[in-house]
């Protein structure tokens, strides 16, 4: 187990390094002079030259990379070109919106996907089961923004249950208000991601139904459903953990789009604004943080999976 964690950690570190290199290089090697882009079409050559100096673009690439990554390791990701605030401070402030939003969305996705997925597998030969799985296919094909617009229309404009836009200025000092501002966005992401997740739960359940140990339990007098719930579900749980890890990226991406739609001051909307403003230090930091989150959760999921599944543990030892 320890050996597995060590190899997996080495892979994670390697992954983070490759990711940082890719982000760094993509923003420099791709066609287009960043300084010129930031200065805009009206930028005079002097302005561009000054920008290059300020951004350190005249240094050789390795020097630039190591000064950036050295800063990241010590918690200094640079300073915004436009607002002059520290990238780290900015990220921490926005994370107060994005992290709760992501967790709530994941909660909604699980609450939808697990019971409905199991139900649609158990009733696969009945109308209700078919309707559920067709419905999931349909919802999974809906763009998150459109789902958000329709939910705003119904629950905020017509029924008036939620505020449609924004996040309270007081933030989490007034937890109730902050929470309510995130409910509808979280439901939006959760419904669409839940529909995707539901298909996996369904197939994992169908897989469990056909396993020998569930069949044995059924032969010993349990009903099919009882046998599945008592003996099959633990194995379904394992596959759900794996898929949930994959879904994290979907939720992160969903959050970016939804923060824009609901006008929430989170990391996602920050990324959109900064890409638009070509604030390179901020964009670099945001991309690294988002990628790191996805990689770290993949890592955590693998470890948890390993701990929970004795077969994988034995295989490695």
């Amino acid at each position: 187990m320890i050996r597995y964690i060590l190899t997996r950690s080495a892979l994670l570190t390697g992954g983070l390094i490759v990711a940082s290199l890719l982000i760094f290089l993509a923003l420099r090697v791709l066609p287009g002079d960043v300084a010129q882009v930031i200065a805009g079409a009206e930028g005079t050559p002097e302005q561009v030259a000054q920008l290059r100096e300020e951004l350190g673009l005249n240094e050789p690439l390795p020097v630039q990379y190591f000064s950036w990554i050295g800063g990241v390791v010590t918690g200094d990701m640079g300073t915004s070109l436009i607002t002059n605030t520290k990238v780290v401070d900015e990220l921490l402030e926005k994370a107060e919106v994005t992290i709760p939003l992501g967790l709530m969305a994941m909660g909604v996705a699980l609450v939808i996907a697990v019971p409905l997925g199991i139900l649609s597998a158990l009733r696969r030969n009945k109308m209700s089961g078919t309707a559920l799985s067709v419905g999931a296919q349909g919802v999974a094909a809906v763009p998150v923004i459109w789902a958000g617009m329709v939910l705003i229309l119904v629950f905020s404009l017509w029924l008036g249950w939620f505020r449609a836009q924004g996040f309270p200025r007081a933030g989490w000092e007034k937890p109730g208000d902050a929470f309510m501002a995130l409910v509808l966005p979280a439901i939006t992401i959760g419904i669409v991601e839940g529909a995707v997740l539901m298909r996996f739960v369904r197939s994992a359940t169908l897989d469990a139904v056909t396993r020998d140990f569930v069949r044995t339990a059924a032969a010993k007098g349990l009903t099919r459903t009882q046998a599945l719930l008592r003996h099959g579900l633990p194995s379904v749980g394992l596959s759900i953990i794996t898929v949930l890890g994959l879904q994290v990226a979907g939720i992160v991406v969903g959050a970016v789009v939804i923060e824009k739609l609901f006008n929430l001051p989170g990391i996602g909307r920050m990324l959109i604004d900064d890409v638009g403003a070509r604030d390179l230090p901020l964009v670099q930091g945001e991309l690294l943080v988002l990628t790191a989150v996805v990689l770290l959760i993949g890592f955590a999921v693998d470890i948890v999976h390993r701990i929970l599944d004795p077969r994988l543990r034995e295989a490695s030892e």
Partner: protein
Amino acid sequence: MSTQRTGWFRPLWRSATGKFGLIVVTIVVLTALVSLFWTPFPAELANVDDRWLGPGWPHILGTDNGGRDMLTHIMLGARTTVVVAVGAAVISTIIGIALACLATLTTRLMREAMATLIDVLLAFPVLIIAAMLASIAGQSLWVVVFAVGIGFGVNMARVTRPELRRVLSSDYVLAGKAAGLTTTQNVLRHVLPNIAPVYIVQLSWSMGVAVLAEAGLSYIGFGASANDPSWGRLLAETQAFINIHPLAVIWPGLAISLTVLALNLLGDKLRETTDPTLSRRMVKSMPAPMPTVTA
């Protein structure tokens, strides 16, 4: 293998979901083609007196805030959708086959390095790639095409790698080698045609995601610019009026959802008909290893 390749259409058409998928995809492609030389109204026609007309004659789907005909713009949007879906598919095919070949046919060190690289790249959501491209190239439809193409290319590589390995060690490839074919000849003549079915299934799904990605990326300003009529842009433009004229938001959303649903269902059905191991197993509903994309 050859019987499968010639007989893919009939099993698709025979099932309800396959039929739905084929019909919707055909309608979208035809709409895009027709829009090249005919739309109900000129694209740039904006008559302020005709603002916010409900569905009726002659504006079948009504008009928007500028008095522009909705149906015309939905038709023009189909063109963008087809361009994005096909463009992303072409790029991801090239990248996918190149990466998979590098990860199977080269030296051992290279193979290991490529396999690791593929795993790392898989963790990069398409949106991140798009953000990188957009921060350099600005708002453009090409950002969507390349971001989805690159993102899916990596996924294609991962899906094809084991398949490629299996085919490479098969008897007919060995026979080809014995008959004096070079590796390149062997790959072109025997290997690629044999992994094609797996590939086409993946392409169908990736086109669905490309359509979704176009909508999301155009909405946040990384995708279609003001000159490209696109479903994603229509959503963004009509959003402000959602309370007064919900229908204007409903049409483009419906067009996107139906197209994506059709492509996903086609992918599922193609998988069932081309994957011999699936039909033998009881579980036919196993969802594919979808990459983490969307928008």
